[in-house]
C-alpha cells in the first residue's frame, strides 16, 4: 500500500516534465496508473475475506511514538476502489473536457496528487497521519477549485472552501489530540481496543464534537454546507470527482472509521442524525428551485451527504448497511451526472436549465445514460439507487423513538429528489429549447465513456446486487459494526411497508414533477418565496463576518502600529516597569542589610557630582554642554569602579568615555542643534514614565546587592588563575584566557561595527 501511494507521489511530478510529444497523452497515462491501482485493489479483495485487515507499519517519528500505519480493511477497500476507479474515469473524461484549456499540466498534477492524498486518507491507520492527508486534500481541492483563478467567483469559492474545511481540519486535530491523550495513542486499532475508556472519559463529548465539526465541514453538513455549491466553479471533472468519490466523502469515512470507538452512545445517536436530517432536507429543498445544472447537482450532493451522515448517526446494523450501499449509489450517479452536466455545458455553451431543452434529438446516447443515472438518483427500479432507498427506508422503519419523524422527513426529502430527477431529465432533453447558444452534438467518445460505464454499473449492480453485498459491503460492515453479519442484497423485497413507502414516494414525486411542469409560475414563486424566507444567505454571512474581521484587524493595527518610535519605546518601558513593580510587590518583605551611610564622604560627593551632571546633561539645551556633562558622569562612574576594586574596568571605562566624547564632538559640527520638539506636557509625561522606571530600577539594584553570582565559577577563576593560566590579575585572565573565545566574539563585534561605520561614511563622501 505504501508503494501504491509512492506511485502517486512520484508519478505526478514525473509526468509534469514529460517530453512535448507524449505530453498530450498525459491524461491517458494518469488514467492508466489509476486503473492499475484499481486493479491492484481488486486483486486484494479475496485476500480480505481471509484476513480482516492488512497492515503495514513504518517507523516515522519514533521519539513520540508516531508510526506510519497503513491498513486495508473492508471499509478502506470500498473507498480505495471508488477513488481509483472513478479516478480513472475522471481522467479519461478530463482528457476530452480539458482539451482546449491552458495549464492542463498543473491541473492533472493537482488532480492526481489529490486522488493520492485521498487514498492515503482512507488507508491511514493512524489518526495524526490521517489528519495530514485530510489537510492535503483540503489544500489540493483548493488548488483545483481555483483552476480558473482569473475569475473572481472561482477565487472566492476556493477561498471559502479552504477556509471552512481548514477550520474544520484544525477542529478535527484538536479532537484527535484530546481523545488521543486519554489512551495515549493515535492508532485507530489501539483506540478500538480501548474504546470503552474513551467513551467513559470526560473528554469524550468535547472530543466528539470537535471531530464532528471536522466531519461536518468536510462533508458539507448544515450549517457549513454552503461552500459546496460554490465549489462547482471548478472544471467539471473536478466537481465530478470531488462530489462523488472523494473530498466530501472523507467526513463520512472518518465517521465510519471511528464508529467502533465513538459510536453507540446517546450523544452520537442524538447529535449526528440531527445534523444529517437538517442537511438532507436543506439539500433536497434547494435543489428543486435551482436553475443552474451544476448548482442543482451540488444541492443533491448535500442531500446525499445528509442521508449518509444520518444513517451513520442512527448507528444500527441496518442503517450502516444502507449507508455503505448508498455510498456506491451516490458515487455512481453523482460522478456521471456531473460529467454529463459538464458535457452539456461544453456542447451548448450554457448550463442554465431554462435555456436548454429538446437535447434528445442531438444527444440520444447522453439522454439514455442520463435517464439511467437520474432514475438511480430518484431511487426508481431497477437501478441500484432503488435498492439503496429501500434499505434506507427499512433502516428508518425499524427505528424506535424519533424514528417516525425521521422517516417522515426522509420521505419528504425523497419525494423532492424524485421530482428533481424527473425535472432534470425532462427540462434538458425533452421539452422545447430554442434559446440554446449553440446546437450541440455528441462527438467525443471519452466524454460519454465515464458516465456510460457508471450508468451500466448502476443498472447491473441494481439487477445483481448480491455481487456487491456479499463481498464489499459485508466486509466493510464488519469493520464498522464489530459483529459479523451476512449481507444479502436483492432488488425485490416483496410487498411490505417499505415497498409501500417507496410507491408512495414515487407517486408523490411524480405528482410534484407534473405540477411543476404544468405551471412554470410555481417554480418562480417558490424561488421568490425562498428568497424572502431565507434572505439570510450563509455565504453572505460568511463574507460579511470575514470583512468585519479584517476591518477590525485593520483598526486595531492602526492603533497599535502607529509608526511613532518613541511611543513604542514608551509602551515597552512602561509595561516593563509595571511588571517589575509587580514582582517587587509580590516578593515584598525583604530587608536592606546595610544601613544608609554617607561614608566615605568623597565617594558620596562623587556620586552627587555624577547625579548632577547626569541631570544637567538631560535637561541642557546646548549639545556641547550636554555631551560634556555626559562625559563627566562617565568619568565619575569609572572612578567608582576604581574605588571598588575594579581597576581594569575603570581603565576601560575611561578609554571608552574619552572616545565617546571625542567622537560626539567630531560629529557634532556636522549635526544640527538640538531641535526643541516636545511640548511641556509631553516632557512631564516622559519624566513621569522615566521616574517610574528609574525608581523601580533603584529598588531592583538594592535587591540585587549580595546576589550570589554562582560562587563556584568565581572560585574556580580565583583558584586556577595562577596555577592554570599563570596570571595574577584574575579579571585579565578571565578575559584573555578562560573566556578568550568570548573576547574574540567581542573583537568581531567591534570589527563589524567598524566596517559598518566606514561603509556609512564612505558612501557619503563619494556622493559629494
Amino acid at each position, binding site marked *: 500500500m505504501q508503494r501504491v501511494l509512492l506511485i502517486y507521489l512520484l508519478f505526478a511530478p514525473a509526468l509534469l516534465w514529460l517530453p512535448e510529444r507524449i505530453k498530450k497523452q498525459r491524461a491517458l497515462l494518469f488514467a492508466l496508473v489509476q486503473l492499475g491501482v484499481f486493479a491492484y485493489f481488486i486483486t486484494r479483495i479475496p485476500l480480505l475475506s481471509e484476513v480482516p485487515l492488512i497492515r503495514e507499519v513504518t517507523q516515522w517519528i519514533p521519539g513520540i511514538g508516531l508510526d506510519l500505519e497503513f491498513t486495508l480493511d473492508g471499509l478502506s477497500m470500498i473507498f480505495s476502489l471508488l477513488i481509483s476507479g472513478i479516478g480513472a474515469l475522471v481522467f479519461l473524461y478530463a482528457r476530452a473536457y480539458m482539451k482546449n484549456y491552458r495549464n492542463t499540466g498543473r491541473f492533472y498534477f493537482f488532480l492526481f496528487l489529490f486522488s493520492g492524498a485521498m487514498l492515503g486518507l482512507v488507508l491511514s491507520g493512524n489518526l495524526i497521519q490521517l489528519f495530514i492527508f485530510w489537510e492535503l486534500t483540503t489544500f489540493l481541492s483548493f488548488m483545483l477549485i481555483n483552476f480558473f483563478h482569473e475569475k473572481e467567483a472561482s477565487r472566492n469559492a476556493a477561498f471559502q472552501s479552504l477556509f471552512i474545511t481548514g477550520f474544520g481540519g484544525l477542529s478535527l486535530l484538536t479532537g484527535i489530540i484530546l481523545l488521543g491523550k486519554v489512551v495515549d495513542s493515535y492508532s485507530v486499532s489501539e483506540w478500538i481496543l480501548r474504546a470503552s475508556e474513551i467513551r467513559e472519559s470526560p473528554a469524550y463529548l468535547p472530543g466528539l464534537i470537535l471531530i464532528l465539526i471536522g466531519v461536518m465541514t468536510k462533508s458539507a453538513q448544515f450549517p457549513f454546507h454552503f461552500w459546496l455549491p460554490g465549489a462547482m466553479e471548478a472544471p467539471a471533472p473536478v466537481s465530478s470527482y470531488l462530489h462523488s468519490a472523494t473530498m466530501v466523502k472523507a467526513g463520512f469515512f472518518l465517521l465510519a472509521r471511528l464508529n467502533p470507538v465513538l459510536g453507540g452512545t446517546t450523544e452520537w445517536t442524538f447529535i449526528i442524525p440531527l445534523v444529517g436530517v437538517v442537511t438532507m432536507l436543506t439539500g433536497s429543498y434547494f435543489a428543486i428551485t435551482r436553475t443552474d445544472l451544476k448548482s442543482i447537482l451540488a444541492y443533491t450532493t448535500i442531500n446525499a451527504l445528509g442521508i449518509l451522515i444520518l444513517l451513520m448517526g442512527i448507528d444500527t446494523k441496518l442503517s450502516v448497511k444502507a449507508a455503505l450501499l448508498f455510498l456506491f449509489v451516490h458515487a455512481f450517479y453523482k460522478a456521471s451526472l456531473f460529467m454529463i452536466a459538464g458535457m452539456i455545458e461544453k456542447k451548448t455553451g450554457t448550463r442554465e436549465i431554462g435555456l436548454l431543452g429538446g437535447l434528445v434529438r442531438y444527444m440520444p446516447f447522453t439522454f439514455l445514460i442520463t435517464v439511467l443515472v437520474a432514475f438511480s438518483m430518484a431511487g426508481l427500479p431497477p437501478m441500484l439507487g432503488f435498492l439503496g432507498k429501500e434499505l434506507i427506508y427499512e433502516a428508518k422503519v425499524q427505528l424506535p423513538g424519533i424514528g417516525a419523524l425521521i422517516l417522515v422527513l426522509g420521505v419528504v426529502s425523497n419525494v423532492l429528489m424524485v421530482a428533481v430527477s424527473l425535472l432534470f431529465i425532462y427540462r434538458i432533453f425533452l421539452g422545447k429549447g430554442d434559446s440554446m447558444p449553440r446546437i450541440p452534438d455528441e462527438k467525443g467518445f471519452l466524454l460519454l465513456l465515464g458516465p456510460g460505464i457508471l450508468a451500466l454499473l448502476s443498472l447491473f449492480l441494481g439487477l445483481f446486487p448480491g455481487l456487491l453485498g456479499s463481498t464489499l459491503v459485508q466486509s466493510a460492515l464488519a469493520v464498522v459494526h464489530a459483529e459479523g453479519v451476512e449481507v444479502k442484497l436483492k432488488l425485490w423485497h416483496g410487498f411490505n411497508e417499505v415497498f409501500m413507502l417507496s410507491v408512495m414516494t414515487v407517486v408523490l414525486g411524480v405528482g410534484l414533477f407534473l405540477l411543476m411542469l404544468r405551471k412554470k409560475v410555481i417554480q418562480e414563486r417558490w424561488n421568490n418565496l425562498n428568497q424572502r424566507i431565507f434572505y439570510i444567505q450563509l455565504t453572505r454571512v460568511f463574507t460579511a463576518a470575514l470583512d468585519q474581521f479584517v476591518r477590525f484587524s485593520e483598526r486595531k493595527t492602526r492603533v497599535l502600529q502607529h509608526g511613532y518610535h518613541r511611543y513604542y519605546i514608551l509602551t515597552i*518601558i512602561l509595561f516593563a516597569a509595571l511588571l517589575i513593580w509587580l514582582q517587587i510587590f509580590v516578593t515584598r518583605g525583604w530587608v536592606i542589610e546595610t544601613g544608609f551611610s554617607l561614608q566615605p564622604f568623597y565617594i558620596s560627593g562623587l556620586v552627587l557630582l555624577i547625579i548632577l551632571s547626569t541631570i544637567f546633561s538631560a535637561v541642557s539645551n546646548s549639545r556641547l554642554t550636554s555631551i560634556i556633562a555626559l562625559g563627566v558622569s562617565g568619568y565619575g*562612574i569609572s572612578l*567608582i569602579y576604581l574605588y571598588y576594586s575594579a581597576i581594569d574596568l575603570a581603565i576601560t571605562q575611561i578609554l571608552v568615555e574619552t572616545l565617546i566624547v571625542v567622537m560626539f564632538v567630531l560629529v557634532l559640527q556636522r549635526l544640527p542643534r538640538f531641535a526643541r520638539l516636545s511640548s511641556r506636557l509631553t516632557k512631564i509625561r516622559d519624566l513621569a514614565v522615566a521616574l517610574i522606571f528609574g525608581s523601580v530600577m533603584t529598588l531592583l539594584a538594592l535587591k540585587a546587592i549580595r546576589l550570589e553570582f554562582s560562587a563556584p565559577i568565581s572560585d574556580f577563576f580565583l583558584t586556577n588563575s595562577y596555577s592554570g593560566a599563570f596570571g595574577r590579575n584574575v579579571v585579565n585572565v578571565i578575559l584573555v584566557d578562560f573566556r578568550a573565545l568570548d573576547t574574540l566574539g567581542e573583537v568581531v563585534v567591534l570589527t563589524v*561595527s567598524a566596517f559598518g561605520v566606514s561603509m556609512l561614511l564612505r558612501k557619503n563622501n563619494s556622493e559629494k
Partner: protein
Amino acid sequence: MEIILAILVGVQYTAGVYMLLRRSILKFIIGIIFMSNATNLLVFLSAGITSGSPAFLGESAERTDELADPLPQALVLTAVVIGLGILVFILALKFKFFSVTGTDDLDQLKSTEE
C-alpha cells in the same frame, strides 16, 4: 554606601529613559549611553562591592577571601566595549541619516521608503 549607589543607578536609568523618549535623535543616542552605564553599574553592584582589594593574586598565588568578585567585572568590561561598538555605529548611522534627510526628528522616520 550601597543605597547611594542604587539611587545613582535609578537616576541614570531615569535620565536614560527620559532621553530615549525625546524626538531628537541625538538625545536618543545620549539616552542609550545612560542606559548602558546604568545597566553596567547594576550588574557591578549586584555582586556586592569591596573597596581596596582588587582580584589580584599575591606572591603566594593563593586566593584570600577578601578579594573582589572578578566575574561581574569581566562581564561589565565586555559590555562596556560592546556598548562602544554599538554607539559608534549608531552615531555613524545618525550622521548618514541627517545628511540624507536633513532632519533630526524621529517622527519623520516612519517608513523605510520615501
